[in-house]
């Protein structure tokens, strides 16, 4: 079953573009990455899923139910972590979390304390006294405490130190192993690469690629680097080669196509070293953005 089903979703803020005719599906139990630069429409998409805003055209369904019409019902099972976390400043952390839990029929007290323990969150401090990173932790705990079946994470790691990021990823992966579907929006490719099964790449309000993360890496490009004093770079100006560059006896390029063509070419010349590797998502990503 598709947990999230988005079809032709469009949102304009007056004349300003939010997203334009977006369609994708998220399967049950997967971690779905949603990547794109700031302003591409990532938050708009998530806010549409939560019915915080209303679509100009198209529709979105979660658990098979329309996001707008069945909003309150489907939000029972959604955990949301906004990119910017601001909560009622005068409240203490514990009161905010209890308020958050009060919206769900189940008793979330035990889970709340467990999560606060994992994220090392002090419950008796006032929210206005917290640093940005600590507020983010409050966001994480309030988003997870009711054991949602779907997590919507909007750039969740900003403001967390590396140690906390690791704990957070661990937490997300544990949730995912228990069957929780995760929708993970980010502009940091490393974390998407590490966590997600599939990704959608969004640019200027449109999805330009939806793919399995391994397919994206493997079936596309190879990053080739050759070392050697006498390499003639122009010899590699072959079909399928891109981003060819050379300096100080090194030649670097990306290659897409039959790898044997390149292997034969390399074996015909003298090199002191050769590496052929998969590009990072970052490099693929930049390719898409050019």
């Amino acid at each position, binding site marked *: 079953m598709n947990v999230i089903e988005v079809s032709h979703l469009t949102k304009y803020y007056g004349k300003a573009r939010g997203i334009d005719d977006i369609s994708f599906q998220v399967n049950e139990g997967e971690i779905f990455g949603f990547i794109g630069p700031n302003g591409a429409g990532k938050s708009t998409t998530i806010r549409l899923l939560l019915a915080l805003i209303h679509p100009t055209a198209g529709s979105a369904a979660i658990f098979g139910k329309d996001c707008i019409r069945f909003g*309150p019902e489907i939000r029972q099972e959604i955990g949301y972590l906004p990119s910017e976390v*601001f909560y009622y400043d005068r409240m203490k952390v514990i009161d905010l979390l209890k308020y958050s839990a009060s919206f769900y029929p189940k008793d979330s007290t035990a889970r709340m304390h467990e999560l606060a323990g994992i994220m090392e969150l002090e419950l008796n401090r006032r929210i206005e006294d917290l640093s940005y990173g600590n507020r983010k932790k409050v966001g994480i705990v309030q988003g997870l405490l009711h054991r949602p079946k779907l997590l919507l994470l909007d750039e969740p790691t900003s403001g967390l130190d590396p140690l906390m990021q690791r704990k957070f990823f661990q937490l997300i992966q544990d949730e995912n192993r228990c069957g929780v579907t995760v929708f993970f929006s980010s502009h940091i490719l490393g974390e998407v690469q590490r966590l997600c099964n599939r990704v959608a790449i969004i640019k200027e309000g449109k999805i330009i690629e939806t793919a399995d993360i391994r397919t994206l890496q493997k079936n596309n490009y190879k990053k080739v680097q050759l070392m050697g004093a006498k390499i003639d770079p122009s010899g590699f100006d072959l079909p399928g080669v891109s981003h060819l560059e050379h300096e100080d006896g090194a030649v670097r390029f990306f290659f897409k196509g039959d790898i044997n063509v390149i292997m034969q070419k390399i074996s015909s010349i003298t090199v002191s070293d050769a590496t052929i590797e998969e590009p990072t998502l970052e490099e693929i990503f930049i390719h898409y953005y050019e």
Partner: protein
Amino acid sequence: MSMNIFKQEFGMRWRSVVTWSAAIAAVMLVYISLFSSFAGQADQINQLMANYPKELLDAFGLNGTDLSTVMGFFGVVFLFTQVLLAIQASNYGFGLVSVEEREWTADFLMAKPVKRTSILTGKLLSAAAGLTVTNAIVWICSFGFINIFKAGRSYDTGSLVLLLGSIAVFQLFFLSVGLVVSLLVKRVRSVTPYAMGLAFGMYVLSAFGGLLGTSVIEDITPFKHFDPNYIVRHGMYDLPLVLISFGVVIVAFVASYLLYARRDVPAVS
């Protein structure tokens, strides 16, 4: 289901309710305590007032008022009280929803499994509860202070009850109009200027509407609908005008629910 929202909202507002109630009580105390000295020199004061232009007396609700009587004097005090009550209610009205959008807490609240209508109902009931506390304080202060400072004179309890009985609708007018205006504009950056603008604007329309010579404009302001001078002198409400207030409240609330259900919550950046 909106009980938790009601409690949360009331918890965040009670300080403000206490502050407003205390301030209004203090103002009433100061003015009402002046009554005995006014009453002693009533003849001179009434003569003095007779020399002022009618428009000026209208503006301060003094036209035809006999300041030597308890209710005549209290009517003037009540007009000041009304201005304060209007600012408070407008403040709650404009802030009710907009404060969440200004501090970005709307995302938190609306991502919860709760209908927008329930959110609004919880918030409105909480604001109304706060205003009712202030209303009750005004009742207590009015009866208490009048009986302390009436300088042995008698007064018409019926008129007093009529005056005080008008407070609830008066408050709801400013609460509902503030709310609907806050939902009609894209974003309320700061509540205070809006609240002051609505409250004083309505007061000015009532006070100086006479100078403009058109009664149509006057008819939209609750300061006119619940003009203390009229109520005290006639011992009754100006019924058609009171109905306008009721009508505005109902229309504003219905519109608010419709607008809030369709509203796009503005995002950061």
